[in-house]
């Protein structure tokens, strides 16, 4: 197959990424790790970063195949963000608060992979896993209360996922796409409700919609220079319950990552 075949795919991916990166103080999807495993004993470790405006994230991911067709993965996600949001409103006025926040998520998954196609260039896989995370938001008080300490809200969440993916691996290029069915459950939280009725309402919605079901989609394009892979990744929440939209969950998260294929180290090209 010639590279030309991928052009629409590559274009689509670039467009998806150009759509930009958003973060949310409630839920931002981490970069989906799209398995590129083709045989047992392969292992890849990847570090990723993302930066847009005031928001920055780093990620560490690893995948390993102990046995043929079986893989295990771990992902860690760490995001810091800030922004401004309307926290209260009345017919006469509204108040906005600046906020800063961070979220950490660690998860593990296990699954199977197969190679398909005449040249075995298609890699299909299905992984599932579980993770736990914590998000903390710190809101500055309204402008007329300069000295007051900030209002903190934080919550812990669990996330289950099932992730079917499809990848193509060539000598110089690898591309992948995946769906992730996420089952997200915010199970406890400590919320300073003084942040404002509007924001408290949103958090209550988060609580009452838990557990929630989200569908996410990812693209990734990687340039291979053995044993390394440099990739651009985009993960987006494409579908959720209606209430999810009111929660303004992040819609798209873009990252740049550098992976090392451990099994390629020291091997001839």
């Amino acid at each position, binding site marked *: 197959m010639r590279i030309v075949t991928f052009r629409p795919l590559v274009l689509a991916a670039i467009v998806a990424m150009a759509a930009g990166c958003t973060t949310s103080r409630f839920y931002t999807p981490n970069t989906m790790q799209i398995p590129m495993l083709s045989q047992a004993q392969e292992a890849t470790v990847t570090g990723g970063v993302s930066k847009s405006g005031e928001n920055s994230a780093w990620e560490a991911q690893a995948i390993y195949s102990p*046995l*043929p*067709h*079986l893989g295990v993965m771990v992902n860690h996600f760490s995001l810091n963000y800030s922004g401004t949001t309307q926290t209260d409103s*009345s*017919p*006469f*006025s509204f108040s906005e608060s600046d906020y800063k926040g961070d979220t950490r998520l660690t998860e593990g998954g*296990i*699954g*199977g992979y197969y190679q398909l196609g005449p040249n075995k260039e298609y890699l299909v896989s*299905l992984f*599932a*896993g*579980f993770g736990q995370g914590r998000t903390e938001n710190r809101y500055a*008080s309204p402008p*007329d*209360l*300069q*000295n*007051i300490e900030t209002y903190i809200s934080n*919550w812990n969440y*669990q996330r*289950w996922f099932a992730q079917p993916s499809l990848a193509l691996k060539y000598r110089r290029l690898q591309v992948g796409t995946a769906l992730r069915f996420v*089952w997200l*459950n*915010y*199970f*406890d*939280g*400590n*919320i*300073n*409700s*003084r942040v404002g*009725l509007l924001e*408290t309402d949103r*958090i*209550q919605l988060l*609580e*009452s919609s*838990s*557990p929630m079901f989200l569908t996410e989609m990812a693209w990734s394009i990687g340039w291979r220079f053995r044993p390394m892979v440099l990739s651009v990744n985009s993960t987006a929440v494409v579908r959720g319950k209606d209430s999810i939209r009111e929660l303004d969950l992040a819609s798209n998260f873009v990252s740049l990552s550098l992976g090392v294929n451990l099994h390629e180290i020291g091997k001839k090209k």
Partner: protein
Amino acid sequence: MEKLRIALPLFGLLLLAAACNKKADFNYYYYEPADYALISQHLNLPEIPDDYRAQLPTHIANLGLAARPVEQDKAILGRVLFYDKSLSKDGTISCASCHKQELAFSDNAKVSTGVFNRAGDRNSIALGSVLNFSAYYGTDLFGPSGVPFFWDNRAGTATEQNLASMTNPKEMDMSHSDIVSAVQSKAYYAPLFKMAFGSEQINSERVSDAIAEFVNAIGSYKSKFDKEAEKAIGYNVYSNNEYKSFSGFTAQENAGKNLFLANCASCHSPTQSRPAKMKANNGLDIATTDAGVGGITGVSADQGTFKVPLLRNIEITAPYMHDGRFATLEEVVEHYNSGIQAHPNLSEELRAPGGGPLRLNLSENDKKALVAFLKTLTDTELIADTRFSNPFK
């Protein structure tokens, strides 16, 4: 075999998923735990405060009025200060001594008694008679919707007003520094001030600012009259609906409503929303002993004129008039029926075509009907509303 390798772990995961599902259980707090412990030793403040914002009924909103925003933390602090007797010289009087919730925040004494049993000059004004301070008082004073305070309209804002009460020798008799040290002596005020103003600093402006916020949050709009007006949306006094009967009113109450609209509404407001006139002389005396608004403005046309009070909750705010001269509503109605005096500044509305005092010549049934209508203005929810009750343990 290979398939099992994948299927088994997946199956295990699913089992785990089912087992680990914890139900969301967020903990919402308002006060820092240590602050709340301190506060709770002395005060009954709910852990998650009630919303002090007014939700005006549609029949009032239709008049183009909106509720004023309330700063929650200031209203909470203001509630405590409103009931705190240590804000008076002899430690016996709080705002609530003369503005009692069960009486729609008025007083049943002819003239209220202040510190050291000093008698005041005038009858206390029912704070709960005000539809909603939010919409009419304190804001936009000189604009079309500003309604000034006191019988003589001397104060423009609730903040101005309550400082005047605190420093009035016949009410609470405190100097500004007295106020500050009284508040400072109680530890639980520190966190409340911090929440309301961002720092624990206490000064008299902050004290009165907080009390004003509380007073401004007191709104009365849940009387039988309001419930009926709400059902009869379209109740618009400026249209022909004005004499339409309310379905939930008795025949007597409806008759009283019509008498009120014909004879009283031109001053007291047909919708019980804001007075139609800011000041008037209603013919209590032929000559003025209390100059009223004139005592403040010095204008001769203002001599003997007084604030036109709203009549919400009038049933429970006896005695009546600025000097509390009438003990019952029957006496008030008889005054308007047959007792109007020809004061030089007697208002137009209460003059007969020749200029002399108007005589309504109401029948006994008419008088009873008018009183029955006035009693539909009582808001029993307001006087039972714990958001406005005494928070001290």
